[in-house]
Structures are given as structure tokens and as C-alpha cells.
């Protein structure tokens, strides 16, 4: 709640209004009129407000803090009129179950209020002189503005005023605010990305702190997106940060990526990586993806409009690596590795938005090794039969379409289900070992989509392949075409062997 008043503020009465049995903490900030400013003596301050807008903005600031820090109750009162030294000019109280959220919310309210509440103060000095604070030429020169904040960046010929304006108009989604997301979001924010959207469902844990540099020990137990938003706003108050506390799932991924200038995948698991990739492809949004394994990392840029996608990359040849990198939850991590890769993600996103000629490489995977200090570029495979990027119309819609039933099911479930067909999708050089395959198994070349569709029309059909990824991608695609009885068997299908 926010109030403007021309009467002296009674802090005791305000504090009493916040009292409630469920509150275990109350953080109060009081702004007082002091007798000096910038080396000059001050006798009194005169506060003036644009009443109509101040009340609206004040309410909005209080509501935003309550929303960002659930369970906090905010009360804020600002004075107008002539105030002598020692007088209370602003009072902010936040009651909450726990102190940490109350401190954060209180800090947020005062910083936002100073940034945007349409209230002005005139300083009066003993010699009779007076001036409006922040409105003098000296104050203007030292004031944080987009002119001086980005000065050293705009001076780059690759940026310039046009580039800086493009960054200010950009709307970038960062999924995963952890080891990669911390430096990525930090550089995007300080570079002036106008709207930065952060998605993560996690809370800050002690074991995150060695590598997730947006967080401090004070943030333990706080939602990562909340702590990150406060930190990023402190770094650059000129940009808009939007926290979204959620997991990325089939049901929300399309809405999350829609309309973004670029998406950064800073997650640590393969399921989300495919989901985001497919949603970006569908929405036509460029994707900057990174993954880290111990001292090493890799970086990929995906152009949503050209052949060569994540499915091509993982079409089966590097499965050992895939499995080891499948999730890094609980894995050992060398902190600078996520720092370097996250920073590289920010660099790639910025270059994309700035349209620096020749600076965005969509054809190679960059492998970074911090043990030997090397960076290698490896050309990415483009799969001629890719069920995703080679099927421009069928595309991935399916992959991201919420399915009523799970698409990928365990081998045990397949056995219980007794499908009409289990189609083993074979790559060149592979064959189906009939002695170990279930009786309803048949073999088809991986590119034969026509036949797969035909068979799937006849009854419950399970797709399998040597590594379980392409079959899953294809099954999801067919689900999206309306084939409700199609499934994929989880994991690698043991009955596929290398042909002799």
C-alpha cells in the first residue's frame, strides 16, 4: 500500500498497521532530511509530487515488491511540502514471515521509488540559494543514463547508436539461471538488452554458489529468478528484467519463446534442451545453446530457418557423450567452465542482435577445454533424413505439442502394451536382430516416413532406434499430426546391431 501526505509521518502508527501474527520480521526504512548534501549545508527540503501519477506509481511499486517476494506486506508513505532537517520524508515497512524476503522487498521499494516516483525535492541552503536535486547540470552529467552507461560500448564500430538501439529493443529469454545463466544474464543486462526474461523454477542452494555468480550466501532458499532480478537491476537499472518462476515444459514452452529476439538455453538437462530447440525452430527464433561437462563445454547457435539442427547433431553418433552430459545435476563442475561458456552465450546473442557481419556461426560446434586452454570448431552434421529440419512443414510442432499421454515409454510398458508394431528405425549399417527382438518388431530405414505413417495408422505403434533419440523425436512429430497411438521406446533398443 502507498500513501502521499503533507502531514508529519507517525512511524509508530504505521508500524502498528503492519502487525500480524504470521509475521516474524518487519524491516523498516526511514528516509530523513539531512543537513548537508554534496558538501553544502542544507536548511530544509521542499518536496513536490505529481499527485495523480505518484499515487499510481507508488501503488505499483509496492505491488511489484509484494509479487516478487511472496508473503511480504508492504506499506510506504511519502511526504510532500516543506521539511526541516531531521524530519521523516519517506517511511517503508515490510512485514514478512522471514527476514530475508523482507530486507529484499524493502530495498526494492526504496530503489524503485527513487528511480520512478514522480516526486522532486528542492534543497535550500543557509545563504538563501536553492536548487532542484538531480536537475542541475552537474547532476545531469553524473547521472546514470543510457548516454553514459553504454558510452564505452557504443564507441565500438560494431555497436554504435544503431546497435545500441537494437539492443534496447531486444527481448531475450534466458532459460536456466544457474552456472551458465548467471554470467549470460549479467552481460546481457549490462549491455542494455531492453527486456530480459529469466525462467527457472529452482531456489538458490549452498552448492550452487561456487559457480552461479549472480547469487550470494544471503540468497540461499530464495527463488533464483527473484534473487537474479534484484542483482541484475542493481547492475543496470535501465533495463527491464522479468522473472518467471516455472519449469519449461511442453505445455508452456511455445508461449515462453514466442516473440523473442533470441533465446539462450542455459539449462542442464537434455529433455529441456530438445524442447527449447524445437520450440525455437517452430517460432523462428535463433537459439544459443551451451552445455558444460567438468572442465569442458560446447556452444551451438541454431538458425531456426536453415537445415542443421539439434536432432541432426545428436542423430546417434555421439551417444556416450550425450549420456554423460544428459544432466549435470549433481555432476562435478569446474566453475570457470560455466563462466566462460555462459559469457560466450551472451556474446553470441549480442552479436546476433547487433547483426555483426560474419560474426554468427550456425555451422560449427565450438568446443572449449579449460584444462588445456583450447577452443576448437567442429562442423556440425546436417542429417539428410532429419525428421525435424528436413520436414519443413511437418516440423516440430508435434514435439512441443502437449500430449495427453506420454510419448516416450519404458520397454517394460511396451511389453505390457503389446503394440501392433514396434518399428526399429535403422540407420545405414544397422540391422534388426530378430532373435532378440519382440515378435511384433519390424525394421525400416530411418528416413522412410511414409511407411512409418502407414503402419502407425493400423494400430498402436512404438518406434525405437539405436539410441532412442530420433525415434522419440519422430514419435512426437507424429503425435502432433494427430496420431494418438504412436509411442517411442525409451533409451537404446538392444535388438539393433551393426550389420556384418
Amino acid at each position, binding site marked *: 500500500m502507498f500513501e502521499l501526505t503533507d502531514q508529519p509521518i507517525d512511524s509508530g502508527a504505521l508500524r502498528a498497521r503492519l502487525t500480524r501474527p504470521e509475521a516474524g520480521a518487519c524491516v523498516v526504512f526511514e528516509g530523513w532530511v539531512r543537513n548537508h548534501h554534496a558538501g553544502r549545508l542544507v536548511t530544509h527540503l521542499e518536496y513536490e509530487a505529481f499527485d495523480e501519477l505518484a499515487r499510481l506509481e507508488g501503488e505499483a511499486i509496492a505491488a511489484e515488491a509484494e509479487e516478487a517476494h511472496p508473503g511480504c506486506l508492504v506499506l510506504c508513505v511519502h511526504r510532500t511540502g516543506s521539511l526541516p532537517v531531521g524530519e521523516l520524508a519517506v517511511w517503508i515497512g515490510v512485514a514478512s514471515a522471514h527476514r530475508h524476503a523482507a530486507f529484499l522487498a524493502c530495498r526494492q521499494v526504496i530503489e524503485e521509488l527513487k528511480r*520512478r516516483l514522480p516526486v522532486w525535492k528542492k534543497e535550500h541552503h543557509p545563504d538563501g540559494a536553492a536548487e532542484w536535486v538531480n*536537475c542541475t547540470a552537474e547532476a*545531469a552529467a553524473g547521472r546514470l543514463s543510457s548516454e553514459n552507461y553504454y558510452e564505452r560500448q557504443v564507441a565500438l564500430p560494431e555497436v554504435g547508436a544503431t546497435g545500441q538501439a537494437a539492443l534496447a529493443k531486444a527481448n531475450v529469454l534466458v532459460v536456466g539461471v544457474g552456472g551458465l545463466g548467471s554470467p549470460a544474464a549479467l552481460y546481457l543486462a549490462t549491455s542494455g538488452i531492453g527486456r530480459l526474461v529469466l525462467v527457472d523454477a529452482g531456489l538458490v542452494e549452498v552448492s550452487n554458489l561456487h559457480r552461479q555468480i549472480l547469487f550470494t550466501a544471503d540468497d540461499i532458499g530464495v527463488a533464483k529468478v527473484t534473487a537474479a532480478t534484484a542483482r541484475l537491476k542493481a547492475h543496470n537499472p535501465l533495463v527491464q528484467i522479468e522473472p518467471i518462476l516455472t519449469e519449461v515444459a511442453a505445455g508452456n514452452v511455445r508461449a515462453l519463446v514466442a516473440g523473442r529476439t533470441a533465446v539462450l538455453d542455459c539449462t542442464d538437462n537434455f529433455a529441456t534442451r530438445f524442447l527449447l530447440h524445437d520450440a525455437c525452430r517452430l517460432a523462428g527464433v535463433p537459439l544459443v545453446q551451451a552445455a558444460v561437462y567438468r572442465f569442458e563445454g560446447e556452444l551451438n547457435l541454431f538458425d531456426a530457418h536453415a537445415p542443421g539442427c539439434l536432432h541432426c547433431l545428436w542423430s546417434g553418433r555421439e551417444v556416450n557423450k550425450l549420456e554423460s552430459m544428459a544432466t549435470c545435476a549433481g555432476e562435478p563442475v569446474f566453475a570457470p567452465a560455466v563462466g566462460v561458456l555462459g559469457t560466450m552465450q551472451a556474446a553470441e546473442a549480442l552479436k546476433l542482435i547487433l547483426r555483426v557481419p560474419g560474426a554468427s556461426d550456425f555451422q560449427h560446434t565450438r568446443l572449449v577445454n579449460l584444462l588445456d586452454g583450447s577452443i576448437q570448431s567442429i562442423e556440425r552434421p546436417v542429417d539428410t533424413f532429419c525428421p525435424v529440419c528436413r520436414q519443413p512443414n511437418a516440423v516440430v510442432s508435434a514435439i512441443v505439442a502437449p500430449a495427453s499421454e506420454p510419448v516416450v515409454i519404458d520397454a517394460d510398458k511396451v511389453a505390457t502394451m503389446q503394440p501392433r508394431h514396434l518399428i526399429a528405425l535403422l540407420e545405414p549399417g544397422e540391422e534388426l536382430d530378430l532373435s532378440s527382438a519382440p515378435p511384433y518388431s519390424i525394421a525400416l530405414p530411418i528416413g522412410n516416413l511414409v511407411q512409418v505413417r502407414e503402419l502407425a495408422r493400423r494400430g498402436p505403434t512404438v518406434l525405437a532406434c539405436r539410441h532412442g533419440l530420433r525415434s522419440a523425436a519422430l514419435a512426437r512429430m507424429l503425435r502432433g499430426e494427430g496420431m494418438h497411438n504412436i509411442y517411442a521406446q525409451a533409451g537404446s533398443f538392444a535388438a539393433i546391431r551393426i550389420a556384418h
Partner: protein
Amino acid sequence: MSATLQVQIKFFAVLREQAGVSALDCTTSARTPAELYQELQTSRGLQLPAALLRVAINGRYTEMDAQLQAGDRVVFIPPVAGG
């Protein structure tokens, strides 16, 4: 030819002092607050650089390049100093 609009302008703090009035009804050919401020810099001797200003129309913050409509209540917001 350029059509003109009737708008209502309110001044606060340093701008009120520079303009010498706290409100003004004015007929303008400006299309945006940025153009309107430029006119006022000349006609009322406003000295605060436009780059330091924000603007509110009809009680809401908006952009300096927003489209002005007849009857708009325009407020130029000097750098704020609450707290």
C-alpha cells in the same frame, strides 16, 4: 499543411519554475511529446535537456515519441528525487 492539436500541459518542480506557470493550454502542431517539448523550449525558455525527461500522458508514463491526441494531458517529468 499540418493540423494542430489542443493539449493541456502541466509543469512540476524545475520545469514549473522555468516555464513560470504550472499549467498551460496550448495549440500545437507537434505530433509527439518530443516535438512538443522542443516547441516549449523555444516558447517558454525551458532549459532542461530533453534527454533527461520522461513524459506522462493522461496520468501514465509513456514514451517521448508517443502520438499526441487532442485533449491529452501532458506532463514532462524532470529527473525525480524522491526518498
